[in-house]
Every structure is written in structure tokens, then in C-alpha cells.
């Protein structure tokens, strides 16, 4: 485990923002941290970076305990804030050079590493100052600086939240690639982003982790489900199929049916024909995580 969070509680005055959080992040994975705005995601990330003191509990990064202030554990971490702010008068190259000096990178490694990262994030051909950068370019530079010292853990706070679809896709692709050399822990309230690249997901709600699991396990709970839409109302179709043994549920005028194997799928289609129910559309259950999140929030 690259990160171990045990019993972390954080209060601001009388308001408890994080309550007894336990979380383990395995190495070389992409760990999605989902939750609504204000759920406490940024607070937990800042605690992991030693920027905020804990009220109780411990956080360990790569075996090093996180302490408030100048924590030695930060040498293993690359951090991308939600709105990365850079010195506008620098170019991307100059900014990364400053970061390299701060991290104490050996002189001979600086140039090739900076070139490599600028190529990775698509800023190698940009020579203008950061003041001219778009939001997406700043996010990409943010990832480059975070990966500079080959961290064991890359923490990204809502890296895609304010980007257009093209920008989001670029960032997700970079994070996916970053997994080859590091562990990515990223927060988001865009569930589809987490679904797209995460191996594990945890959800924070009102300061508590309300679920955490391998994404495949979560998806498995839904993979046998199919969504049907008919020319008649879903409830009417369900009533007509009431005598059968299929597990059915109506949601938004759609019938969700659990069909675990080919035989049951064929049997269900035969039953529809028998009952004279005309199919309009049918697809496997998707948006699983989003649905799960909505269920939890309800």
C-alpha cells in the first residue's frame, strides 16, 4: 500500500469535515475519490500533503508518516491542485526548471526529464509565457510539474472539473499513462471520469467514506442487468410479465431485468414475444457508478 489512512478526523471549529476516515491506496493503480462538492475531498488531500493538521488519526505515505508543515513524506508525492496557479511570467520550461531546483533534482537529469514531461503533456512546442495559457494547458502543466520528481503518489484534486470534453479526455489519457510509473489518487465529482480510468473507487459523503471498492467488483453487481424500453409503459410490461421468475424493476419508464446467462436472456425474449410486448430498445445497464452514487445520496 502506498498510502495508509487510519482513523483520520479533521474539524474546522465545531464543524467536522472528515470523520474517522480509513483508506488504503494500493501501488500502481488509479484510485478515484468521488463525492459532491464540499464533501471534504480537498481537505483530505491537504491533510495527506501536511498542509492541514489532523485532529486525530494517522496518514502514512510510502512508509513515511505525514506531519503538519514541512513533512518529509512530500518527497514521494506529486500534487496537482484543483486550480493550479503558476507564475505567469515564466514559460512552462522555466517553471519546471524552478520546480526541479526546489526538489533538488540532479543537474544532469533536469533537461531530459523536463523535455520528456513537456512532450507527455503536449507542451513541448509551446514557448509562450504561462499568462497566455488556457485552463487545459495549465492543468497539463500542473500534471507535468507533479510528475517531475517521479513521485510514488500523484494526487490530483478535481483535475477535469472545469475542462471541456476534449480537455478532459486529454487529462484522463495522461493520468492513465502516468499509472505506468506511479499511483494516481484523484478526486472528482464527474463520475464518468472515475469510471473511465479508475481501478478503485471510494466515495466520501458528509465527511465519511460510504463505500470503497475495486471498480470491477462494483460493476459486477450490475453487469447482468439489462435495460428495456417498450412501446408500452414499463410498469404495464412489468405487470404483464409478473407471472415469470425474472427479477424486474421499473425506473424512469424503463424495465431493468437481471438476466445472468444466455438461456435466461433467450427465455425473456421469448416471453416478450408471447405477451406481444414490442421492444423499442434494449441495452446493458451502464452508468453503474453514477447510479450507485445517486442511490447513496438519496
Amino acid at each position: 500500500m502506498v498510502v495508509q489512512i487510519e482513523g483520520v478526523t479533521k474539524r474546522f471549529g465545531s464543524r467536522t469535515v472528515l470523520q474517522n476516515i480509513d483508506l488504503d491506496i494500493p501501488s500502481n493503480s488509479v484510485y478515484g475519490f468521488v463525492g459532491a462538492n464540499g464533501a471534504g475531498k480537498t481537505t483530505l488531500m491537504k491533510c495527506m500533503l501536511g498542509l492541514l493538521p489532523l485532529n486525530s488519526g494517522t496518514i502514512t505515505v510510502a512508509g513515511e508518516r505525514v506531519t503538519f508543515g514541512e513533512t518529509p513524506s512530500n518527497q514521494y508525492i506529486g500534487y496537482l491542485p484543483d486550480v493550479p496557479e503558476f507564475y505567469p511570467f515564466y514559460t512552462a520550461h522555466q517553471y519546471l526548471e524552478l520546480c526541479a531546483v526546489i526538489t533538488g533534482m540532479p543537474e544532469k537529469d533536469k533537461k531530459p526529464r523536463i523535455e520528456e514531461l513537456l512532450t507527455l503533456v503536449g507542451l513541448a512546442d509551446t514557448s509562450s509565457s504561462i499568462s497566455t495559457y488556457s485552463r487545459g494547458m495549465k492543468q497539463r502543466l500542473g500534471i507535468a510539474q507533479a510528475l517531475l520528481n517521479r513521485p510514488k503518489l500523484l494526487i490530483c484534486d478535481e483535475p477535469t472539473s472545469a475542462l471541456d470534453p476534449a480537455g478532459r479526455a486529454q487529462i484522463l489519457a495522461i493520468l492513465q499513462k502516468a499509472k505506468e510509473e506511479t499511483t494516481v489518487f484523484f478526486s472528482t465529482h464527474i463520475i464518468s471520469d472515475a469510471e473511465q480510468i479508475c481501478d478503485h473507487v471510494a466515495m466520501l459523503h458528509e465527511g465519511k467514506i460510504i463505500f470503497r471498492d475495486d471498480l470491477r467488483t462494483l460493476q459486477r453487481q450490475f453487469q447482468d442487468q439489462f435495460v428495456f424500453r417498450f412501446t408500452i409503459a414499463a410498469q404495464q410490461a412489468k405487470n404483464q410479465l409478473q407471472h415469470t421468475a425474472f427479477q424486474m424493476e421499473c425506473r424512469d419508464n424503463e424495465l431493468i431485468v437481471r438476466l445472468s446467462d444466455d438461456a435466461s436472456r433467450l427465455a425473456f425474449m421469448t416471453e416478450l414475444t408471447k405477451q406481444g410486448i414490442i421492444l423499442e430498445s434494449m441495452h446493458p445497464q451502464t452508468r453503474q457508478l453514477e447510479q450507485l452514487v445517486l442511490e447513496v445520496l438519496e
Partner: protein
Amino acid sequence: MNQWIGFFKKEWFESVKTYKLLLVLCIFGFLGVLNPFTAKITPVLMENLMPEGTVINLPDPSALDSWLQFYKNVPQLGLVVFILLFSTMMSKELEKGTLIILLTKGLRRSTVITVKFCLALCYWTLALTAAFLITYAYTAFYWDQSNLHHLLFAASCLYVFGILLLAVTLWGNTFFASSYGGILVTFITIIALFTASIFPVDVSWNPLELFTVPAKLLTGETAPADIWLPYILSIGVAGCFLWLTVSHFKKKLL
């Protein structure tokens, strides 16, 4: 040390890019020229402004008049503008969040404070030196300066007083993390020093003495030994404020 130098380079580059260097050189260069010029032109102006027929006996301007202008203009105009220019050293970074990335990369918090203070100190040295040298050269062109006492020491009093104000401003700016915090704290400090100076004491300790004593030093009315206490005290208090700033910033929630 590499980290300290690297961050100092960034601060220097930023100050140049944001025209701080140009502004400081222009303002203090202008003040340097203004001092002897004002001394030279004042009697002529007075004569022209008086009603016709009025007879006034003004002594001829001297090097002392030029330096008196220096100790009026540089602290009252130059130092005020200088403090305003450097009053957002920390708050700008804290408000924008530009330091977060560097701090999580291992930049020491003490480095941030000491670098910012050292850069401001370099600028203050540059500014005062520029104004001093220009005033000296321009005054020497018109008048003999050999009768003036403790010329360099008088300037060093102003220099030390400026260092004290810089340290107070940096502390206020870091503590309140707002652009007005530093200015407000400095303003309150000066008011407090003025208030304290009202009460008569046998041996003056008030750093404000450094602000008022240069004229007396130039005429030889006061000797450097008479103001060792406010001189040393100002350096000590500036050091304390710098330590307080570092210590506060180390515990600051970001």
C-alpha cells in the same frame, strides 16, 4: 542552499518582470536629483513668489540644505512608496495560491520568508544607495560638503529604520495574508512610536529617533554614540519580527 538561490532567482525575475526594479530606480533616482535641485531653487522661488518690493534676506543655499531635503524626501516619499511596493510580498502568493505547489515540492517555509525579506533588503539597499549617490554627486557639483558631519552614518540610520519597517510589514502581510495587513500593521507601529516619543525619557530608545536624528548628525549637534540604543534596538526588533514571521508561517494553514 540551491533551493534558496533558486527561489531568490525567481523572486528577482518576478520583480524585474513586474517593473519593480524600474519603478524603484526611477523613484529614488528622481528623489536623488530632487534634493539638491530643491535646495538650489528654493531661494529663487521665494524671491519670485514674494510681493514686489518685499525685501527678504535668505542665506545662500548650501550642501546642508541639499541633505536636509534628502532626509525629508527619502523617508517621507521614498520609504512610503517603497513600503507600499513591497507590502504584498506574501499576501499576493497566499491569495493566489502560487506557493502551494512549491511548498509541497519541499520548499522550506523559512526559505520563502528569508528570500522575500532579503530581496526587499536588496531593493532597499539599491534604492537608498541610488538616491544617496545621486544626491552626493549633484550636491558636490554645486557646493562644498567637507563641513558636513557623519554623512554615511546619518544615511545608515535611515537604512536601519527602513529595515525595521520592512520586517514589520512582512510580518503583518504574512499574519493577515491580505494586501492591507502589512500596511495597517506598519501604520499602527509608526503611530505607536510617535505616541511613545511624546513621553520624555532620559535615554531615548525609540527607533523613531533614526528617522529624525540625521539632520542633527550632519550639523554635528548629535554624535553617533548618542543613538546607539535606538540603532541596535531597531536591528534587534527587525530580527525578532523576521523570526516571528518565519515561526508564524511555519504553522500557517494553507
